[in-house]
């Protein structure tokens, strides 16, 4: 199938391109930009006039809820959501049931995902078996099976000796380690940012120090072991300052932020809205401002959806008893665009945070850009169309988001995966 995407404004952060150009696709790859290659005869013409033609988004964290939590969401439903959100590559964390800690489970997930021909799924495997923090997993075999990184997700590794060994072992092979900074003792039983809001509401608090203390430990051990460390979902100004200090000391470390942390803070919990219960917690307005600025300056490398579909039963509970997390696959692009509009960031910069930068953190080279020869994963969207988020508009099985009812910018018109149109919006 040969596709000609005509008259679109092509934005490819990897090559710093932002210009009206035509794009030519054949055999699942991008074969030319600008002028058609000789003898190119399109089977399909996509008129992209007035639209942005960008690389398909690369999401650093999307829970697909398989295996183990199929009642919350299935691979099928979440893949549809990814397509509707313009996301063509995604990393899925290992906190499934069973935990992704064996090559067989990873192969199975990759196989199931491939059969659907939707987004490319890149599993992140557990750093320790069952995420228990005692024994390291078979990292080399897991990478052969298709893993891109190793993580403890939200189950912090308490034993620093195990953590150091895990980092040493990963560093031996040059594997990536992604860690969420949580001190389990300071965060114990906590459900909200430890500040005035939580104090007034009588919610157990998670102090910023629960993030920074763990973070300092990770950074010290990364320096010691030379591991390729990526810090996931930072939530506070203090955490960003820690990372900046480590970088000034010569450490090469990357970090990301969840897209909802750019827009929400602890005040948004309002009258105990369980939709605002997330890990790490929504912090103060000052923290939010620092995260927004940090993403703009590039100190925060990437932004992700941290997609966590939760069914209504899991959310219709008293705040602290509810399941944490927000649905996000279909909100990543709109919320990133909203941030860019509000912070007056050029689209090229904004899209870099959800394409080239996140692809770099995952270590994938065939996706996340529109260079000639790259996989033809493309997201074509109208940045000026504002759409209302409703339960019906979301294809994800998770309707859990405080953004329900709000209008957000950005309407995905086409999503292409390896040169196939996998999603097109009704005009």
């Amino acid at each position, binding site marked *: 199938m040969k596709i000609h995407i005509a008259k679109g404004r092509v934005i490819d952060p990897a090559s710093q391109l932002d210009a009206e150009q035509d794009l030519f696709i054949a055999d699942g790859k991008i074969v030319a930009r600008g002028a058609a290659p000789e003898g190119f005869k399109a089977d399909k013409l996509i008129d992209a006039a007035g639209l942005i033609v960008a690389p398909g988004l690369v999401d650093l964290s999307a829970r697909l809820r398989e295996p183990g939590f199929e009642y919350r969401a299935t691979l099928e439903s979440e893949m549809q959501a990814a397509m509707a959100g313009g996301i063509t590559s995604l990393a899925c964390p290992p906190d499934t049931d069973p935990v992704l800690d064996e090559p067989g489970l990873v192969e199975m997930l990759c196989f199931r995902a491939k059969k659907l021909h939707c987004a490319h799924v890149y599993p992140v495997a557990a750093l320790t078996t069952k995420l228990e923090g005692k024994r390291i997993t078979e990292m080399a075999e897991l990478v052969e099976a298709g893993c891109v990184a190793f993580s403890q997700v939200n189950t912090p590794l308490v034993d620093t000796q195990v953590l150091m060994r895990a980092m040493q072992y990963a560093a031996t092979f040059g594997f990536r380690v992604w860690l969420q900074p949580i001190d389990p003792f300071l965060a114990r039983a906590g459900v909200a940012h430890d500040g005035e809001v939580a104090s007034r*509401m*009588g*919610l157990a608090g998670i102090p910023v120090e629960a993030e920074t203390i763990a973070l300092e430990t990770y950074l010290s051990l990364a320096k010691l072991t030379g591991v390729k460390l990526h810090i996931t979902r930072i939530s506070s100004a203090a955490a960003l300052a820690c990372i900046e200090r480590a970088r000034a000391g010569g450490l090469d470390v990357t970090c990301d932020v969840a897209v909802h942390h750019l827009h929400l803070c602890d005040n948004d919990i309002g009258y*105990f809205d369980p939709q605002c219960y997330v890990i790490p917690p929504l912090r103060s307005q000052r923290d939010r401002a620092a995260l927004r600025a940090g993403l703009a300056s590039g100190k925060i490398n990437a932004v992700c959806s941290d997609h966590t579909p939760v069914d209504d039963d899991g959310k*219709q509970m*008293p*705040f*602290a*008893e509810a399941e944490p997390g927000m649905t996000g696959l279909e909100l990543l692009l709109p919320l990133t665009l909203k941030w860019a509009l509000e912070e007056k960031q050029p689209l090229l910069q904004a899209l870099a945070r959800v394409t080239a930068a996140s692809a770099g953190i995952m270590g994938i080279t065939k996706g996340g850009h529109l260079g000639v020869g790259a996989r033809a994963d493309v997201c074509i969207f109208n940045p000026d169309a504002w759409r209302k988020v409703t339960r019906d508009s979301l294809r994800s099985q998770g309707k859990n988001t405080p953004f329900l009812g709000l209008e957000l910018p950005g309407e995905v018109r086409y999503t292409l995966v390896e040169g196939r149109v996998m999603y097109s919006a009704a005009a």
Partner: protein
Amino acid sequence: MLNPQLTQDGRLRHLLTLDGLPKSILAEILDIAAPFTDVAEREVKKLPLLRGKSVFNVFFENSTRTRTTFEIAAKRLSADVINLNVSTSSTSKGETLLDTVDNLCAMGADMFVMRHASSGAPYLLAQHLRATGRDHISVVNAGDGRHAHPTQGLLDMYTIRHYKQDFTRLTVAVVGDVLHSRVARSEIAALTTLGVPEVRVIAPKTLLPTDVERMGVRVFHNMEEGLKGVDVVMMLRLQNERMQGALLPSSQEYFKFYGLTQEKLALAAKDAIVLHPGPMNRGVEIDSAVADGANAVILPQVTFGIAVRMAVMSMLAAGN
């Protein structure tokens, strides 16, 4: 965001918290409670205000004392009262809170009095009633987690007004485990709203929530300093399990530094009153000599508590 406990024209729909409740409504509740105090002295200790209404006391956390005062209040208003200790029945079988509530609605509930161990649980209930078109059913928060215990806060205000009349000339100290106390949060919210110029909290740092000063209080760690010249001492109950973690070393040490004794009380104003929400831990947060002494108004608090709860229930029934 709509305030879930007020109607659009600013009347009381539910009573969920005192934080953010307008001064006029607080004062109105206290005013309406006044004539209810002497119903107990009548031949027939009943008023017909809630006749034919079903009040469900739904307690997800056990508390015989609070449940009983609500029960008496509802019965004095001629309501039919149904008590449910949910902690011992359905939730252990996996039924969710909202399932339980839906069942009780189907049985014809007009009002829920709810106690729950989780902060904010009554909000979930109020939102659910609204979402399912059952807005006519009111919710009274009888204590949720560490968040609020509004009727206790109100009865404390009633007691203070009874003995001290004018809130705007008082210095009030709240002493003890503010961190875990829903009573303290409701008291502080009511005292600051009613115009008490100085509200103090007295506790070790381990028992104070982060940024407690932002609630409009002055923080003291030394009890002798904190009690100096105060007109009202509001003691908080210290749960025994607080001794097990790293919050406090022992009840003996706590009593020595933060227990209310006659000697410490002597630093307060001569006519200071001492309140306690009960049940008291004598020898832990309060000395028997004080608890039974001339300054204590702990038993009148219980009596006023019934009148205040009658006022809240009848206002909710009238507002709907």
